[in-house]
């Protein structure tokens, strides 16, 4: 019982604080944070655990969002089925694309993903304009039927739903860290040759990680679609390609709570700063450079050891960090 509690306390505490966010902050802001942190979790897993940096996460976001949007606009009315279809589309697309992509070197991987995001942008904006209505986007807020327990059409109910989804995902990623598979992921990042000697297939581990991460991203996409009731090609615009990477770095690479801390900080800065100055990019960019030069720990990576020391009264070794290896 104690062991179970120990495993869960961190998550429960984090989510208790998150529930406070709901009380103190306006609802749209809270919803934005929830979706954004789900969006970032996939990228954080890829970057922190497998060592793949992807500048093309919006591509998978768009896959989920458009799968949901097509269903709700043309075929059905139930938002839950729409979200399930979004996840399914994410799984299928990333399983197919993953077979080609994960064989590439990590530098090529980042660039090829970026290219994919741009392909999907033009596909949705121009080539499939008859189905996607181009830049006008698909509006289906009125199509969604109200569902019995949690009515996703209402923002307050939507918050509870996305909250539960995020909680489940967090538990899943924490569980993954404890399994042999999680250890293999870390091994393929640090030393793939040694892992090969141990009899594991680097390709399969990376492929699985790619699918898990991008299905998460697709789920975030379909949540966006249901929440806004509208999808346009703007969500996969190349200028937004690095959002999840920025948030991952901001929160702390490879830390479990990094995504949510980063999402709160990023959304908060964006909202606050755009009130004062029109160009918040300058500030975000400078913060990013500062974090990278100051040891790339991010907000949570810096706070974690301090908090643990204060609450647990003992020294803990810092978590898994991307401790800039010297090149060989």
């Amino acid at each position, binding site marked *: 019982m104690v062991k179970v509690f120990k495993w869960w306390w961190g998550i429960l505490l984090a989510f208790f604080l998150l529930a406070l966010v709901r009380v103190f902050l306006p609802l749209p802001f809270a919803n934005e944070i929830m979706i954004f942190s789900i969006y970032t979790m996939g990228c954080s897993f890829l970057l922190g655990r497998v060592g793949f940096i992807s500048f093309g996460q919006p591509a998978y976001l768009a896959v989920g969002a458009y799968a949901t949007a097509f269903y709700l606009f043309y075929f059905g009315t139930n938002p839950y089925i729409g979200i399930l279809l979004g996840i399914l589309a994410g799984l299928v697309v990333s399983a197919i694309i993953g077979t080609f992509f994960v064989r590439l070197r990590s530098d090529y991987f980042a660039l090829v993903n970026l290219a994919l995001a741009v*392909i999907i942008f033009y596909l949705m904006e121009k080539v499939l304009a008859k189905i996607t209505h181009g830049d006008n986007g698909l509006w289906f807020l009125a199509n969604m039927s109200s569902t019995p327990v949690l009515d996703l059409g209402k923002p307050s109910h939507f918050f509870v739903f996305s909250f539960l989804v995020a909680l489940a995902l967090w538990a899943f990623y924490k569980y993954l860290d404890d399994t042999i598979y999680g250890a293999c992921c870390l091994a393929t990042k640090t030393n793939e040759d040694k892992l090969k000697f141990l009899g594991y297939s680097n390709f399969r581990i990376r492929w699985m990680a790619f699918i898990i991460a991008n299905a998460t991203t697709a789920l975030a996409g379909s949540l966006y679609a249901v929440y806004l009731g509208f999808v346009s090609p703007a969500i996969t615009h190349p200028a937004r390609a690095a959002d999840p990477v920025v948030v991952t770095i901001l929160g702390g690479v490879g830390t479990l709570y990094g995504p949510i801390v980063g999402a709160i900080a990023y959304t908060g800065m964006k909202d606050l700063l755009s009130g004062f100055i029109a160009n918040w990019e300058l500030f975000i960019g400078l913060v990013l450079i500062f974090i990278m030069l100051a040891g790339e720990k991010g907000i949570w990576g810096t706070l974690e050891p301090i908090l643990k020391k204060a609450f647990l009264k003992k020294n803990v070794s810092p978590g898994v960090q991307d401790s800039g290896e010297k090149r060989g």
Partner: protein
Amino acid sequence: MMNVQLLISGVIFGLSIGSVYFLLAIGLSLCFGLMRIISMDQLLYYSVGAYLTYTIHVVTGNTWLGVLGGMITAGLVSFAVERFVFFRIYERDITFTMITSFGILFAGVGAIKYIWGLIPRPVPIPINAQVLILGTEVPVYRLIVVGISLLVYLGIWLFLNRTITGKAIRAGIEDVEHVEGLGINVYGLFTITFIIAGSLSGLAGGLHASLIMVDPQMGLEVLAFVFMVVIIGGLGSIKGTLASAFIVGQVISLGSLVYAPLAQMAPFATMLLILLIKPTGLYGSRLLKR
């Protein structure tokens, strides 16, 4: 049968676009080859070059002077960035530098918005003359852009093959540690390469400014295309970059003649195809394994 006049102007358009991409991609390729960094901030120097061209044109009325000024300023900005940021992080792995350089690009776009505002600015073409090629009127300016990029290729080739510094850089692309062992200051080489890359990006921006509207997001818009050129050519190869820049240019312009929405899609399909056949790009070396 396709209209011959349309075809010729399409080819010329593709060549000029390819030249701009080549000038941008060569900087990225050199930086990757020598320093093993992916320098996304080259796109910032491209925007700086374009904006300087605009400002100098407004003040003096001469676009060529603007292109020159843009190139020099871009070189200076890249020198400053290299001193303050990259100098500290050359030793880190490639993911690290990629994210940092993206931070620089992002901050730079913000700074440009702050200085010049959000409105797209027009820059007039310095030469309005047309020349007849096989019965088709072709703008002279586009031909000059192609000529300049070929001259740059020649210049880079001579620099890398005929000067001591260039030879040291080429040796560094093969193996940095051995060059350092010979007593050559590799960080000096890094600085020189970075400034060359930055000035060429500025030149690309200045030349491209007259062909499009200058706006703060212009760097992010060409980002994907330039990386595509670099990937198709193979990271670290200059010959490959030239070949792939012209391939991509032609695919864009001829693709748009066949079916307009294809223009932006076709290069990516080409890239995926080439990566499937050869995962390191056309001329990428197999030595650069992770």
